[in-house]
Every structure is written in structure tokens, then in C-alpha cells.
């Protein structure tokens, strides 16, 4: 074993055939780190450093991208004093609430339905995943068209066929967030449904057979065998979903531009506005840090849940 390590590519240092284990380890470490280095530089540049840079940036006053002077927590106070921040925060809870109502149950339902059918199962699996491969921006623009108000809007045409009056869709402030969540669910539910489907197919079939012998009806079997299994998966999916909801950006930006009257502005959209409309990078960074802290807390929760499951 040790011989192998020394042989390997190194110019045969003959006197050192009996290399001490320590030295062998060192060479392995060195090569390992050397191979990792390029990727680590990329991770630092694109992920880790920006995270820290964000915190630093948020504590300064800046002129464009040039830092001018240290201002402590002033930028945070600016964020808190900004009326849009409270609108966005309120919306975020609304987004979370609606994605619990629509986005959380839709994939569970779809997964149960697809697992309980036998015809075209493969087609359903592929079909439900299809919206996932659509580019996010294209999806959002597409749904913007589908939600066109007036008699020639696509959804209104379809509704008209069953005798429903044309709706205002996104221009109705009470509807914007639920509709945005609906279009997000359309895009992402398939991936989650596939995970639930994998969960269902990992249930021991004998459980169902035993339950049948005990006289459980089909619905009872779903209620007492399928659902409990999905529940533990669902907890982690739920947190992942909240994490995703905090990052909503394209949807309100493209579909409603945050309107009508800030009714759908999201936190990340506010970050974008601070940074790339007002060019006030420090305030944008301060808000990013706030989002980051919230997400970090949620992530710890997620880790706790998933590690409990394994243990």
C-alpha cells in the first residue's frame, strides 16, 4: 500500500522506499488541495466572498461601487424606514401562505393520483415534470399572456366556454399573489411530485396488502399508509419551499412589476430595485443580509429535520 503511493508518478526516489506514513499522507494532502484549489477559488469568488462582502457593503456608504465611509447600521435603518420594505415583508407572508395552500398540496395530490393509476404512468410522470425545464423567464412572460384581462385573454376565452365572465386576473390586487403562486406552482410542482412519487414507491407493498386483509378501504389505505409516509418528506419540502419563496424575483418583476400599487412586490425584487434602479448598493446589501439571516435560520431547521430522519 505504501509502496503504491510512492510509486505513483513521483520520480522514483529509491532510497525512500520505506517512507514514513506521515510523509505519504502529506503528499496526498498536497495533491488533494492542489486539485481542489481552482474550484475553491470559484466557490470563494461566486459564493463565499460575496456573502461576506455583502455584510461589509451593508455597513458602508458608497458612491456607485466605491465605498465612501463606514456608517454602521444606518443602511439597515434606511431599509426599515422604507415603506416598500413593509409592503414586501407583508407580501412575503402572503406568498408563503398561498404557497402553503396551493404549492404545498398540489404536488402531494398529483403524486398520489399518478401512483394510483396504471395507464400512461410514464407519460404522466414525464408530463408533470415538463414545466420544470421551461426557462423561468419564458414561463413568467407566458403566464403574463395567459392572464391577459378582457375578452381575448386566453384564460378568459376558456372560462367563457363554461359561461364564466372575463376576469381581471393580475390587475385585481387581491388576486396577484395567488396567481403568481399558481404560476410558480405550475412550474415547480412537477419536480416535487416526482420526489413524492419516489417516496410512495418506496413504501413496502405488503403494508397495503396487510391493510386490505384487515378490511381497510382504498381511501383508508391512502389516509393511513401513503399520507404518513409523505408527511415526513413533506416537512422538508415545506421548508425548501419557504426558502424558495423568499427568492421570488422574476415573477412580480415581469408579470406585475410589483404592482398594482406594491400589492405583489417581493423582498428580492426590492433588493433588485435598491441595487439596480436606485444604484444604492449598500442598502440593497443590507436587505440581502436580512434575507440571508432568515434563510440561514430556515436552513438550520431543514438540516435538523433531515438529520433526524436519518438518525
Amino acid at each position, binding site marked *: 500500500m505504501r509502496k503504491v503511493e510512492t510509486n505513483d508518478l513521483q520520480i522514483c526516489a529509491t532510497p525512500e522506499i520505506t517512507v514514513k506514513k506521515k510523509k505519504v499522507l502529506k503528499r496526498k494532502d498536497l495533491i488533494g488541495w492542489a486539485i481542489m484549489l481552482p474550484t475553491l477559488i*470559484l466557490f470563494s469568488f461566486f459564493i463565499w466572498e460575496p456573502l461576506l462582502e455583502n455584510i461589509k457593503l451593508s455597513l458602508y456608504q458608497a458612491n456607485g461601487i466605491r465605498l465612501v465611509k463606514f456608517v454602521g447600521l444606518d443602511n439597515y435603518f434606511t431599509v426599515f424606514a422604507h415603506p416598500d420594505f413593509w409592503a414586501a415583508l407583508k407580501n412575503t407572508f402572503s406568498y408563503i401562505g398561498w404557497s402553503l395552500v396551493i404549492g404545498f398540496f398540489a404536488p402531494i395530490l*398529483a403524486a398520489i*393520483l399518478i401512483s*394510483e393509476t396504471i395507464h400512461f404512468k410514464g407519460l404522466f410522470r414525464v*408530463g408533470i415534470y415538463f414545466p420544470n425545464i421551461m426557462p423561468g423567464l419564458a414561463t413568467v412572460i*407566458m403566464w403574463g399572456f395567459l392572464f391577459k384581462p378582457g375578452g381575448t385573454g386566453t384564460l378568459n376565452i376558456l372560462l367563457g366556454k363554461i359561461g364564466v365572465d372575463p376576469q381581471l386576473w393580475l390587475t385585481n390586487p387581491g388576486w396577484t399573489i395567488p396567481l403568481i403562486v399558481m404560476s410558480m406552482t405550475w412550474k415547480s410542482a412537477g419536480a416535487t411530485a416526482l420526489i413524492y412519487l419516489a417516496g410512495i414507491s418506496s413504501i413496502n407493498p405488503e403494508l*397495503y396488502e396487510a391493510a386490505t386483509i384487515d378490511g381497510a378501504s382504498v381511501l383508508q389505505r391512502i389516509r393511513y399508509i401513503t399520507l404518513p409516509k409523505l408527511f415526513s418528506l413533506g416537512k422538508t419540502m415545506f421548508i425548501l419551499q419557504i426558502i424558495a419563496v423568499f427568492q421570488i424575483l*422574476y415573477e412580480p418583476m415581469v408579470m406585475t412589476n410589483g404592482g398594482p400599487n406594491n400589492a405583489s412586490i417581493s423582498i428580492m425584487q426590492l433588493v433588485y430595485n435598491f441595487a439596480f434602479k436606485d444604484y444604492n448598493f449598500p442598502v440593497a446589501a443590507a436587505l440581502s443580509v436580512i434575507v440571508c439571516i432568515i434563510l440561514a435560520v430556515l436552513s438550520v431547521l431543514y438540516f435538523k429535520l433531515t438529520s433526524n430522519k436519518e438518525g
Partner: protein
Amino acid sequence: MFFNKYKEKSDGAIRYYDIKSLRTKILSIAIFILCLLILIVCLFPSVWVFLASFKDISEFRKDATILPSTFNFQKYVDTWNNLKFVRYYINSTIVVIGGTLCSVTFNGLLAYVLAIIKPKGHKIILGLVMWSLLIPATTSIVALFVNINKVGLNGSFLPLWLVFGANAFYVILFKNFFEGLPKELIEAAKLDGCGELQIFLRVILPLSRPIVMVVVIFTVTAAWSDFLLPYLVLNGTQKETIMVKLFAYHSSNKVNAVDMLRAVAFSIIPPIILFTIFQKQITDGATAGAVKE
């Protein structure tokens, strides 16, 4: 017959022996119909984009119909030429190819070190990577943009390629796969005098074709769909990708609705083709990544 096929069903709550009762018969038909409805909901919007983009602008504005009056491909060709889509297709392709190469190389190498070489201190890096998995990159977009400007990489494809080389999710996918590879093969390669990089290129990568495929497909779709960073880096440079251009058209109001729809259609055709070819790898990859975390 519809119900006979249930003989093959060996998992889930409904089984062939349930089918005898009328209630279950109705229930399984209802379930099947609901599945069809789900399928229609999933597919209809994209189909509609293609249907509606055959309309001309007055037809689109005035007629309350789903189907266009004619199917004239010339309209597509005109929009393609007017909006100079070739250039943006090429730009997007450049981003996709560069991004995919970076993605496989850099994430693969890191995963290789974490899974096989395991030098002293690799656990720290693994921890950091796991954390990056959960802190979404969009939250530090402001600082990243500032950084890219500081090193003078704005207006260049380079950051858009390299950003795919730092993807925690792909690293974990690779790492899980590499850990399952037979250790004997790696030992044998060492005996034959292969260096660490050679082992990666000659042993690990060829054995890992399935996972490489998954990461390639994921990266291709992600790179094609990526919008925010390309927009911030490339907007106004003639290097815009399709997504950047879509957003620009959408916010400028200079492009009319049907041209816009055709542009959307152009932007979703490549992913649809890719998905049709690799549907199995894609749907399998979707669950592999999530369940193994």
C-alpha cells in the same frame, strides 16, 4: 380492457383485487381522468404559446379564439430575422457550452477530492459546500455584481461560464456517485502508475457517465435559462443571451405581443427538444439529487 391492466399494479393502495367493487371502479376512472387533466394543465400553456404565435397581431388582439386562423411558418421566419435571433442563439450557446465544461470539470474535481482523495481538512470544505447548498446565490447577487465589476469581467462571457464551476448541488451529486465506485479499480490504476489527475480522467469520469449526463443536462438547462446574472453582466454589450433579450423586449414595449410570443417560443424550443431526447435521465436525475441529500 381498462381494468385488466390493474393486474400489473403491484404498489400503492388500489390493486386488482379492489377493482371488483363498483365504487373502486369509479374511483380509479376518476383518478385516471384527474391525471389526464393534470397532464393537460402541464402541457397546455406551452402548446398555447405555439398556437397563439401563428396569429398576427390584429387577430391576437381581437379574436377570442384559441386556434389561429392559419398556420403560416413565414411569420416565424420573419420574427426570427427581424429580431436577429441568430446572434442571441449563438450567444446563449456559447454560455451553455462554456458553462457545461466548467460545471463538469470544476465540480467534478472538487467532488473527486472530497470523495476519493480525502486530504487532511477535506471535511471543512465539505461542510462549507453543504452550507452553500442552502444559502441561495441570489441573495448575494449585489456583492457578486460589485466583485465582477471590480475585476473588470463585466461584458464578458467568462463569469457566466465560471459561475457554473461553483455549484454545491452538482458537487454533492458527483460526490455521492464517486463514493459508490469500486475502490479496487482506483487502486489498480494507482498500481499502474496513474497520477491523481489521470485517475480522474481515465478511471472516474468514464465510469461516471450516468451522473456526468445528469449534471450536463442540468447545467445546459440552467445555463440556457439563466437570466439575472447574464442580464447584469451582458446587457447592452451585443453579447446578450436569449433570456436577456426576452426581458429587454418585454420591458421596452417596442416588440408587439405576437413577436414577443414567438420570441418566447424560440426560447423554449431547445429545452423542449433536450427534454424529449433525455426525458428518462432528466426525470431520474430530478429525484436522485433530492432524495440523497
